[in-house]
């Protein structure tokens, strides 16, 4: 007759469980810490440098500066390039009477393709736009959308590097005037 382990002892063996209380303590502390430093509204920033007015002559460089400027007139975006500036393209408002952000971005993509190292753009609103509209224009000139043509920059180490931003250094040209 074989020995049968008493039922109570069998039950006792099954009862060995992981002690979750220390883990629970740690998780509680973490939850409190994260709750204190949580940001439920996503707030970001758009950088812009203060323009510096200088009376000195610019340093002589073989390459001509792009000096990309976008004038915002009551009826259109006027893209200007070069020193002294000349009109590169005028993008009129669309049929609904809104500024054509899509065409502006596609023109800027073309400019970026031939000036991959250039990051600066000067905005000159000549019309009293709302701040919301200004932010929208800043978004248009800053970012390359996924649907836009891909632009690559040649790098000695990494080879072709995909460019993710258009002209991210935004300046307001007419603050001082």
């Amino acid at each position: 007759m074989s020995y049968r382990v008493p039922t109570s002892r069998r039950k006792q063996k099954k009862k060995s469980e992981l002690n979750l209380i220390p883990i629970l303590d740690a998780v509680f502390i973490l939850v409190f810490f994260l709750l204190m430093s949580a940001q439920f509204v996503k707030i970001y920033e758009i950088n812009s440098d203060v323009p510096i007015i200088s009376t000195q002559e610019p340093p002589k460089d073989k390459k001509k500066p792009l000096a990309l400027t976008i004038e915002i007139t009551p009826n259109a975006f006027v893209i200007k390039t070069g020193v002294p500036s000349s009109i590169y393209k005028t993008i009129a408002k669309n049929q609904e009477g809104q500024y054509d952000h899509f065409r502006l971005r596609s023109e800027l993509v073309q400019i970026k393709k031939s000036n991959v190292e250039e990051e600066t753009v000067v905005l000159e609103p000549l019309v009293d736009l709302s701040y919301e509209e200004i932010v929208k224009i800043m978004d248009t000139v800053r970012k390359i959308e996924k649907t836009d043509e891909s632009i690559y920059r040649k790098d000695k180490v990494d080879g072709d590097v995909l460019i993710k931003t258009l002209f991210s250094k935004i300046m307001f040209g007419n603050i001082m005037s």
Partner: protein
Amino acid sequence: MARTRSIRMQKRRKKANNFELDITSLLDILVILLIFLIKSYNSSGVTMNIPEGIELPKSSSSSMNTPGVIIQVSKDKIWVDSVAVLDTKNLPQNLYDDNGKRIVPLFNELTKKIEEIKKLSLQTNNQAKEFGGVANLIIDKSLKYSYVKKVMYTCASAGFKEYKFVVMGEEQ
């Protein structure tokens, strides 16, 4: 007979003492909460106070906030680091100077603020507390460019080198 009864009673007492709360489900909830909180964790460490009356414009930007002096501009008030410096209900006599380009109360407060920061950095000898020339602009989206330009001009003339336009992130 008495012995058996006592053993039975001991077992019952043991059972009553061994009662444990099942915390596995509670732990599950906490882990889910933890993941949600980690997602909304503010790694920049900068807290922005957006006063009543300011509605931020939406933007596709994803740049983290930088520490600096916070200038809040609503339709009728201007604050510097949450301290009101201008109220349309109580306008000073000389509100603008420099051909109407500079807001005087804002300029005075900003220069005072810069001096305070510089003094503090000299006292503490802490590079982290040095004046970085960053102005965080929290501006109501309905304000016109002509007014925003005045705020920007005032900041520039007070000695700020960089503007950070604070915006609301769009869901991507």
